[in-house]
């Protein structure tokens, strides 16, 4: 490289030198107030960030029944393994502590923040500030913290003290654990000979492969034939020979509708499982639901109302499903499905097409 080029290169490098850490590059643009309002919804323990509004226990009970009880139960007691929100006070030292809003959560702000931004599960950011105040008031009532005539608002929010407000302390491992675990490690004759005291096989809760071994066990190299799809029970058919299942001549539902319906179904998927291996959950499995008598999915515990509707001859056709999905509680009063319904006729048609495509 010539001297001239060295000089030129040096000058170029100087001109384009990386900025020092504190220098600003002028990238990005100022956030607008409307944008900050839309995205910065965090509510802090001291009440910072609370929107103006209020809600009472009775309204909260109603909103909770409509939007939350499907998973958390009418009394916030939790259905199946969905979170229990009430009770549990005094259990934190028990062998099976019940950690709820009332027994564990230190700040009311956390309840408001989480409900407002992340609930209901699968339909986040659909509860208004007033509804959120009402739900939070109801949860306080469910936990015995306020009376049934209580009204919660941004004005009195910070006056509420949670039962476990003093129950947390900052990580103290550096003081309480590290000194004990920083002794020089013992290398020989560290303990008396040991015996097995517990075996995981006794619990038998690990997913297994078809041969009964723990799922994902490495196949034996010495016996696995190279033509097999190792580790897969259906591996005798090489994957490149699997044929696409021919579509029936009858065109059936519109593929675009099915695809759109699959998207709409995301609103349902938190409670209803579909597809191979699907199991009943908060709601029944919906494979083969179109054409089936209502209330007849094996092993699902239906509301009395739905069981009776089926016994009375209700069959899930395009029409009956459309009516039910538009307004569940109007169509089958006292159904335990607390979903409020799909207002758009297209959404209903699409989701029905999707359900139809699932077959039995």
């Amino acid at each position, binding site marked *: 490289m010539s001297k001239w080029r060295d000089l030129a290169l040096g000058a170029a490098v100087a001109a384009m030198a990386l900025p020092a850490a504190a*220098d*600003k*590059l002028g990238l*990005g643009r100022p*956030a607008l107030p409307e944008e*900050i309002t839309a*995205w*910065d919804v*965090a509510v802090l*323990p*001291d009440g910072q960030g609370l929107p103006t509004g209020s809600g009472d226990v009775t309204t909260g009970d109603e909103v909770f029944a409509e939007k939350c009880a499907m998973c958390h139960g009418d009394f916030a007691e939790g259905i199946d*393994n969905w979170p229990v929100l009430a009770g549990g006070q005094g259990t*934190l*030292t028990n*062998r099976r*502590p019940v*950690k709820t*809003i009332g027994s564990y959560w*230190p*700040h009311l*702000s*956390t309840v408001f923040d*989480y409900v407002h931004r*992340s609930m209901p599960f*699968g339909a986040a950011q659909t509860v208004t500030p007033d509804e959120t105040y009402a739900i939070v008031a109801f949860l306080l009532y469910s936990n015995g913290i306020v009376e049934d005539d209580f009204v919660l608002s941004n004005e009195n929010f910070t006056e509420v003290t949670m039962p476990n407000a003093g129950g*947390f*302390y900052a*990580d103290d*491992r550096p003081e309480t654990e*590290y000194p*004990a*675990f*920083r*002794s020089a*490690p013992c*290398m*020989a004759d560290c303990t*008396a000979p*040991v015996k*097995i*005291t517990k*075996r*995981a*096989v006794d*619990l038998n*809760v*690990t*997913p297994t492969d078809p041969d009964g071994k*723990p*799922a*994902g*066990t*490495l196949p034996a*190299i010495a*016996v696995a*034939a*190279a*033509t097999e799809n*190792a580790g*897969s029970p259906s591996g005798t058919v090489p994957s490149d020979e699997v044929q696409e299942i021919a579509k029936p001549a009858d065109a059936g539902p519109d593929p675009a509708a099915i695809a759109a319906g699959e998207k709409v179904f995301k609103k349902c998927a938190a409670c209803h499982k579909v597809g191979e291996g699907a199991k009943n959950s908060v709601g029944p499995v919906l494979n083969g639901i179109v054409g089936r008598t209502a209330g007849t999915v094996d092993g699902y515990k239906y509301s009395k109302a739905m069981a009776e509707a089926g016994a009375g001859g209700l069959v899930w056709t395009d029409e009956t499903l459309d009516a039910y999905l538009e307004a569940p509680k109007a169509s089958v009063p006292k159904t335990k499905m607390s979903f409020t319904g799909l207002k758009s006729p297209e959404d209903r048609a699409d989701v029905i097409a999707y359900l139809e495509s699932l077959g039995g």
Partner: protein
Amino acid sequence: MTDASKKGPSRRGFLSGMAAGGAAMAAGAVRAQTQAPDPLITEVQPWASEFGDPVDAVPYGMPIRFESHVVRRNVEWLTESAESSINFTPIHALEGTITPQGCAFERHHSGAIELSKQDYRLMIDGLVETPLVFTYEDLTRFPRKSAVAFLECAANGGMEWGGAQLEGCQFTQGMIHNMEYVGVPLRTLLAEAGVKPEGSWIYAEGADASSNGRSMPLDKAMDDVLVAFFANGEALRKEHGYPVRLVVPGWEGNMWVKWLRRIGVYDQAVDSREETSKYTDLMPDGRARKWTWVMDAKSVITSPSPQAPIRHGAGPLVITGLAWSGNGRIAEVDVSLDGGVNWQKARIEGEAKPKALTRFYLDIDWDGSEMLLQSRAIDETGYVQPTKDALRAIRGLNNVYHNNGIQTWWVRADGEVENVEVA
């Protein structure tokens, strides 16, 4: 073995005969003598004569089908909904230290969302001079840094607090992965907005429905936190936060917010749901530790392990595993063959990077008798990975998170391996 003749001249029969011979060998025995020449060698095989796949047969490749068992797996009974759930990295089947994105464990709180670079925005607001909005392209114009870092879920091993429960290190220690990230230091972006003197915490949120917001002290945010958009040389995968996630080296995985959409600067912790109701450590007195961010030193033997039994019989055996510490580098790993009575130093392979997975080996001549395998990590601060019982003595049995206790595998004489506890 029922079918020894379909493919070629008794290839499977030949190989199984080899395996049986191997099992019968005594430790340090002479090499196996074959009865007949191996047809895989003496006969021209199709792949040695015919064409393989052309280029572009698969524009973006998946592992060869013989490796189809090496996948993430979940334990269905753990959670009520697959959208707010977790699965596990097949660490028993991986080697080295880098985890491929495609089988690195997933934890979503409201499902893995599809967010394009075009639709991506990052806001920095709160106690800053100028609240800013960045597009994805803006982020690519800041000077970049890279870091290899492990991400461990705070609940990794949580099911084992009460006792040995799941069979296989994929399930007991598989809520972990280790990738090479490229992105922009968070401090660079914070400097661009100008943190006000009273700002002492940041709060990071995702764009998904859960938002999974987490607070951290400004000191950490200004130290080694990255706003990352590449992992292992390629764009983040959707399930790992495409297009942008937070990388918080050494600290619990829940803080590595995916689909990062907002950084708020505050004068206090937000104490969100994920840092009060969850990811806190309930202690025996009924109070709970919060802000337990650092993942302490830990290790596990990945092979042999319940999903990676010894099939070759006695003789040379490679014992290998992973060690890591959220407090820095791994200094030493010890392995015990007798349940913690005696220990020997394992060999650390390659450079032990801070807050990253480190691979260790112990190469032994196995005599074919039972073993109670354990590994013990020691980090550069001198912290020695404790036994599960030592942790229980301090934290009781109601804890869920931050279980970094020593794992025991019982290797039986037949080479099968079980998850056990010893005393």
